[in-house]
């Protein structure tokens, strides 16, 4: 079955405001696809266009190869898990799960069978007669998943469903969602502003900013090869060093970083000399000591112990603050605020992107 979703040059405007700019994107059948971006970037609008709560101002939405133009929300093969879950509080757990089937005129016996099966899938056997208010946050979450799966959708839309849960539960639910997706083969479209969620669960991630797609890639590519300054600074931690390009060739660019001297980083495509750019080095790409190709002298400002690793905050010669991530066992007593540090990095670990990082 073709469960792909195609946004065919879809645009969404609200009066003067363009919430989603022209977007042409194909989400593959059975893919776990995430839209990642800060709040207000238009990702929820995309979900509403796919589910039928909004009709695109221009362009269209296709599910499988069916155009969804003019198909109302209750006739689309999608189901949604809402941020606040939106379980029906006046119905029992089983009635909630069976609602979509009840609407379709499925017999009571048949409905019961489905809700029992789904309760088992989400590991809540025998909770069918409970009231929604008797469930814990994590249990409600699972019921919302079961309710959405009961109608056997081709596409499951998830609108930041884990944001209300505590950390441990959130991590657990990530694994579970991924597991359910694998078992059912349904296309999952996941909306989040939490990059951890997007990176751990997704086959591909679309990073969005101000209604525009920044980059669509698998999580590893997104992290290692960001294409825009926004992606480089939004996905994961990154140290952004403003600079000016001196020359670029063969996948590398030499840049002038003012008082930090000239540095070299990787580039995706050539950048014209004298264009202002940003050199990004991940905190784990900065090494302590001078074994890397390029050295920077810095003053240690803060040491944060975070369990398995250690984050140092230091200011460079030009007063810019950078973060350095070390393994916990690299800690030594000499690391006190105010002490001088020598940092270094290799050109492999730096990326030069045209534009300024605070353009985001």
């Amino acid at each position: 079955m073709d469960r792909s979703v195609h946004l065919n040059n879809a645009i969404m405007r609200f009066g003067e405001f363009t919430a989603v700019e022209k977007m042409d994107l194909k989400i593959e059948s059975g893919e776990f696809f995430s839209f990642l971006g800060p709040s207000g970037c238009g990702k929820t609008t995309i979900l509403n266009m796919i589910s039928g709560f909004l009709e695109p101002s221009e362009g269209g939405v296709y599910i499988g190869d069916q155009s969804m133009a003019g198909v109302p929300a209750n006739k689309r093969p999608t189901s949604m898990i809402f941020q606040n879950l939106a379980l029906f509080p006046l119905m029992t757990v089983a009635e909630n799960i069976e609602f979509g089937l009840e609407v379709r005129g499925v017999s009571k016996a048949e409905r019961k069978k489905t809700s029992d099966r789904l309760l088992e899938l989400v590991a809540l056997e025998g909770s069918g007669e409970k009231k929604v208010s008797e469930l814990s946050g994590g249990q409600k979450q699972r019921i919302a998943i079961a309710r959405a799966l009961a109608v056997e959708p081709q596409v499951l839309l998830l609108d930041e469903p884990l944001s209300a849960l505590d950390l441990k539960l959130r991590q657990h639910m990530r694994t579970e969602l991924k597991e359910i997706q694998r078992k059912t083969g349904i296309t999952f479209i996941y909306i989040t502003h939490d990059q951890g969620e997007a990176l751990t669960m997704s086959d591909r991630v679309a990073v969005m900013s101000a209604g525009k797609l920044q980059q669509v890639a698998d999580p590893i590519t997104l992290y290692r090869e960001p294409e825009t300054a926004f992606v480089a600074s939004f996905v994961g931690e990154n140290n952004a060093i403003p600079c000016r390009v001196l020359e670029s060739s063969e996948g590398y660019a030499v840049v002038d970083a003012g008082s930090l001297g000239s540095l070299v980083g990787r580039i995706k495509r050539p950048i014209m000399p004298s264009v202002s750019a940003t050199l990004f080095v991940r905190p784990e790409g900065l090494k302590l000591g001078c074994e890397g190709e390029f050295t920077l002298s810095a003053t240690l400002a803060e040491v944060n112990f975070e369990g398995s690793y250690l984050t140092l905050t230091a200011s460079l010669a030009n007063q810019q603050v950078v973060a350095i991530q070390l393994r916990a066992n690299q800690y030594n007593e000499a690391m006190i605020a105010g002490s001088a540090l020598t940092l270094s990095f290799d050109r492999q670990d730096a990326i030069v992107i045209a534009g300024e990082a605070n353009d985001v």
Partner: protein
Amino acid sequence: MFSQLKQRFGSPLSVAIVALIAVWLIGLVILPQLIMVNYSLKPNLLPGEIGGVQDQYTLSNYATLFNNTIHLSIFFKTIWSSVLVTFLTLVVSYPLAFYLAKVATPRQAALCLLLLIIPFWINEILRTFSWYIILAYKGPLNALLLELGLINRPVRFLSGDGGVLIGMVYAYILFMIFPIYNAIESLDSNQIKAARNLGASWLRTHYRVVIPHAKPGIATGCIMTFMLAAGSYAVPALLGSPGSRWFTQIIYNWFFEGGDWNQGAAYAFLLLIICIGFIALVMKVFKVGLGDIAR
């Protein structure tokens, strides 16, 4: 409860608050009602006979209604018509309340509410009179319907119960809209979206999600509208015809034209009892408790 009040307002103010409520409840509600009960259970006597041998408690005033077929039929017609008014008001109000609470933008909703409220700045008698003019045999409504070709000759709206029903639906619509509006407004809009998303038609979304949530509001609106309709005097007096008398008019006649307060009081209590019975019934049908309504 008193200690809570005391904590918040201090002793003197708390005593004053409680005293005021007590005066209002006892002096203005309970005592007058008790006096009326007392009246209703005594025969109508000349001043000289009060305290005499005939001055004894009796149920004869209550029996009068059941021996007078005309009064009895008006009594039941009043109850039935009030049910009809309540139902019609609900039918008109629910879509409007839903629109205001969930569909309209805040601006539109504010404008609509204003338009609904402004007519109520005019007193009930004047508003009812305007309906008298609109519904008249040679009035604008008939003229319009004739012009549109919907009718061949003017309709006598004011001669049956039609005029009274229309007038009452209009007079009490706010009492229905506001409780329902409040109830629907408190519904999480995602619940409606979720129902739609799971495939529910609009009708089913209302029937399964919106109405169950709004039930206390609907019950409150129905009870208020019914009570006001059953106890209405001005609307039937102005828009009714001799053939569409309301029970309140008969009560009025006993008091002020028959001069028989005892009989009037008995009739008034019978109406009250039926109304309370109706409320209990509505609450049972809608499965709402007093607590839900007070919310």
